[in-house]
């Protein structure tokens, strides 16, 4: 693999990590458990790699490894998404008036000065 390609991928890695930190830092506690379940499902994307191996290889041991890998990853995707959904369904606010949690999140999203209004 060319060094050039590696550097490109490092570029992508660092940008993605940057996005991750910036976004996740702002997820309210309320949503931390759903978040864990979600990232769980998302990180099971290693599934694509295992699919390719299982789908292409002729060699037996690779098949075995690939097979197990696909099974494991599928468990995570399916389970992870279902659980996230279950949790989020619980959070559906029952009355119209915005919940503190929503306000909280809104507060975070809102332009800095608004927070300032409260902070000051």
């Amino acid at each position, binding site marked *: *693999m060319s060094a050039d390609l590696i550097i490109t991928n490092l570029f992508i890695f660092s940008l*993605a990590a940057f996005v*991750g930190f910036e976004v996740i830092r702002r997820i309210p506690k309320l949503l931390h458990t759903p978040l864990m*379940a979600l990232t769980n499902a998302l990180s099971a994307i290693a599934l694509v790699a295992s699919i390719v191996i*299982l789908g292409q290889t002729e060699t037996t041991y690779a098949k075995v490894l690939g097979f197990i890998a696909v099974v494991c990853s599928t468990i995570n995707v399916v389970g992870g998404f279902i659980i996230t959904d279950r949790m989020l369904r619980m959070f559906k606010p029952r009355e119209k008036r915005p919940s503190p949690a929503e306000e909280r999140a809104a507060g975070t999203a809102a332009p800095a000065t608004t927070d300032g209004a409260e902070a000051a």
Partner: protein
Amino acid sequence: MDRMDWINLAYLVGGLGFAMSLKWMTQPATARRGLLAGEIGFGIAIVATLFWPDMTSEGYILIAVAALIGSAIGVPLGVWVPMTAMPQRIALSHAFGGLAAALVGVAHFYLESDHLSAFETGVLGIEMVLGFLVFTGSLMAAGKLQEWLPQRPIVYPGQNAVNFAVLGAALVLVIVLIADPSLHALVPIIAVLGLAFGVFLIVPIGGADMPTVIALLNSYAGLSAAALGLVLDSKLLIVAGALDGASGLILSIIMCRAMNRSFRNVLFGAFGAVDQVGGGEAGEQGTYRSAPVDEAAELMKMARSVVIVPGYGMAVAQAQHKVRELADALESEGVEVRFAIHPVAGRMPGHMNVLLAEANVPYEQLLDMDEINGDFPQTDVVLVLGANDVVNPAARHDTGSPIYGMPILEVDKAQTVFVVKRSMRAGFAGIENELFFNENTSMVFGDAKAVVTELATEVSGRRDAVGL
């Protein structure tokens, strides 16, 4: 654009879907959209992958079978696991994830070993070690949380030395492998060392530190996925891995902060040490007052404002629905009822929020520590429900205490405090709680669910008796 280009384009879209998914998770209002974005991104990526060049038809069959088996296990795991068991569940799936990543790494190594660059071999090696240690580590964590394994940290002299030795050995072998990738025999050994390290890493850590550790393992899993992506030149894996890694790291940092712990502290079993000191059993410290349930019921009914402080005990007892009933009963008596949620109450971030939301407690009633702490002096009755460390005043003054400096719910400032737990036993920090010995505190012993049920009936039952 040939077929691979289209696939990569699909991966690009998938990756962005993941990013948007997390972005939308920053607000409950948009969280569901976030989930959807994640699912769509995932779906696109998978479908695209199925068009990968020179897949064998046998391969497709195997994939289908594996996917079916996976779903057959995954769906039940998703649908039936109770919310209280979330930490275990999540640890378990990290185990699967780690294993999958590690196995793909191994397979790729064997298939490509004759034309792998030193860099690739190195990254692959590290990827395997990470994957395998996440596998066993997460299994251990799940076991401890499910209490199949001893919750108590198991410490012995020179433990850290041993652990590092194992890890070191694994890395040395990776280096050897870089030098001569033909030494296929090394891979199993590296795998074993990785697996062993995963076990050793968790052994000295107390069951209650598991959530922190799980988050940390989560970020390792992310890293290994990213490493895999680096070797396979899969930008999608890199992005997903990076996002996952970031999330795990941030969550563990948040938890450590909220518990006023340092990583070192969590990872190298400082807690074990503390345990020795603190001693599980309390009681040396003065006397405590034990109150019958009806007294508590009486006082709560007469109160203007009641604050309920749920803790791990409520989760264990699955008392959340009964608590909701109690709250309703009190409100129909004209009592203002609020819930005080400590950031690390329970065993995972947002644990209490999820449970109470499950019991349909409108989350207007759930107040964060910083929102409610000011109000305790004006609160008539506080009901501490299976919470312990998060209301331990020692955190404020006792510099010796392992939880010293951890922000707590200052319930001791309230008029009256009822503490519902089964015994005088300590909480996860393994230290006694002087709150229980205050004169305005009364212990109500029993299982949280049982006690709360009784409270609820008492409160609603005698409505006529006390004319309001």
